[in-house]
């Protein structure tokens, strides 16, 4: 941590998460924003930069007006579920350059109420959507099938990741699916797009989340221990799934080494892994690509590794998108959990002595992969 390190100083979810028919996405964003600012010991009057990417075009402007902010800097890059992970890098760059000092990143959507994130019109969609691909789940099913074919990975190996996720969720009072589950129960769930079945898929919940970033100098005067943003790596490999040459390898194989290099760390330095889990198969492939095991060996690796509380590799300690919550995009909540772990605030699910966390966001049909490394205050 050096003098120009940019820190995360506040994190929070919306007041409620789950099935919220009386809340708009914008309202959930403001709840989370207010809570994250309070967590930092700040008010909205301290904010001079805003990042928000949901709620249509000019999303950050919509949110700023709704919440009552007149920021100096806005950012709303939308790269699917990885967006809020990538925003740490842009916010840090804006702060470091002097454009602004304190950035509020807010997210909120209500997919349970039928609110979808509007897809931008895409030229390439004319060559995919008429065939009924059922994206995004259809794309991840194509990926899972090819991985099974090429490497012999089994559905039971994917399913074990749900079992592990529930072990963490049982320790998280906010998690939605907290009941222990067996591999057999996961396998018996009805198929959605084979080889993906119902319980291989993440939750669909309404929720908001937010985090606040500022300079180390300012962070040291605030309420909570700052968490340092140590670096990120990005990979944007394609837009349409059929355009990816090898669909069994994601851009995480590029983004994770870059992030570690920027942070000056190796995988051995990482104490907690928060890796996007929209689907079990996608998570298994990311474990390979992040570098925890060799390409193609993810199935056997998952079988022999304890990812649960007190286990070999603490993975998705909130319960993840599979068991904690998943409102359209989970990137925000990966960041929130990593910060809480590095502050030592996680109670029963706290990973002892956690110093460094790896956060990996995955977006769209596998197209955007962003890894970030966070560190506890010295």
């Amino acid at each position: 941590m050096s003098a120009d390190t940019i820190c995360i100083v506040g994190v929070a979810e919306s007041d409620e998460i789950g099935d919220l028919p009386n809340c708009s996405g914008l309202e959930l964003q403001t709840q989370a924003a207010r809570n994250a600012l309070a967590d930092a010991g700040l008010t909205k009057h301290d904010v001079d930069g805003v990042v928000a990417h949901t709620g249509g075009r000019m999303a950050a402007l919509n949110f700023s007006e709704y919440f009552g902010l007149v920021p100096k800097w806005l950012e709303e890059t939308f790269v699917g579920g990885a967006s809020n992970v990538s925003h740490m890098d842009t916010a840090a760059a804006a702060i470091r350059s002097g454009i602004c000092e304190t950035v509020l990143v807010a997210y909120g959507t209500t997919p349970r109420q039928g609110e979808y994130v509007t897809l931008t019109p895409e030229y390439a969609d004319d060559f995919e959507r008429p065939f009924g691909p059922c994206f995004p789940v259809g794309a991840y099913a194509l990926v899972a099938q090819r991985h099974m074919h090429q490497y012999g990975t089994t559905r039971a190996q994917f399913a074990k990741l749900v079992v592990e996720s529930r072990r963490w969720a049982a320790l998280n009072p906010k998690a939605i699916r907290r009941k222990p589950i067996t591999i057999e129960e996961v396998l018996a769930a009805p198929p959605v797009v084979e080889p993906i079945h119902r319980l291989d898929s993440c939750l669909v919940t309404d929720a908001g989340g937010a985090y606040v970033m500022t300079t180390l100098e300012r962070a040291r005067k605030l309420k909570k221990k700052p968490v340092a943003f140590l670096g990120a790596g990005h990979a944007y490999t394609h837009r349409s799934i059929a355009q990816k040459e090898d669909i069994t390898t994601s851009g995480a194989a590029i983004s994770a080494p870059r992030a570690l290099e920027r942070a000056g760390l190796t995988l051995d330095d990482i104490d907690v892994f928060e890796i996007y889990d929209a689907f079990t198969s996608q998570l298994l492939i990311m474990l390979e690509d992040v570098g925890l095991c060799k390409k193609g060996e993810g199935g056997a690796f998952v079988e022999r590794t304890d990812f649960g509380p007190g286990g070999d590799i603490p993975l998705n300690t909130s319960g993840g998108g599979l068991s904690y919550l998943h409102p359209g995009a989970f990137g925000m909540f990966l960041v929130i959990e990593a910060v809480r772990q590095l502050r030592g605030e996680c109670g029963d699910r706290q990973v002892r002595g956690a110093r460094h966390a790896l956060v990996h966001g995955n977006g769209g049909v596998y197209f955007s992969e962003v890894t970030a490394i966070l560190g506890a205050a010295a």
Partner: protein
Amino acid sequence: MSQPPKELRTLYKSELAAGVYQPTRSPEAKPFWDGCREHRLMLPQCTACKRFHFYPRAFCPYCDSRDIAWVQSAGTGSIYSFAVVRQKIEPAFAHLLPYAIAIVDVNEGVRMLSRIDGSPDGVACGKAVCVTFEELSPTLTLPLFRLS
């Protein structure tokens, strides 16, 4: 051709109603859509570097040449991957359940996302397929693939 085929718009209607999807324009691909109507799989090939590409652009994405010729594909290939849709997700396709979508490696060297014509039983990675055409209307035909 400044508008997508009318039937594409119809196909997207349920999504349009939900505000989820806006049909896009692909006028550079007119020979592709015209070919499908004639039951010919037409692919763009770069005259300079000889590589085929897909989806169609007015230039070669590999060497950036704008000298593109349209060539009829033999319509054969193999399944790179597939997935079987078992639940109603997109209402416009519910009547087809269960059906397999597939990424097909077409032998000219391009990859296409498509649907398998017929039962998903017996579909597997690596299996040989050939093109078949589904006439949605007099003006829109889609290239599907069936097991060879």
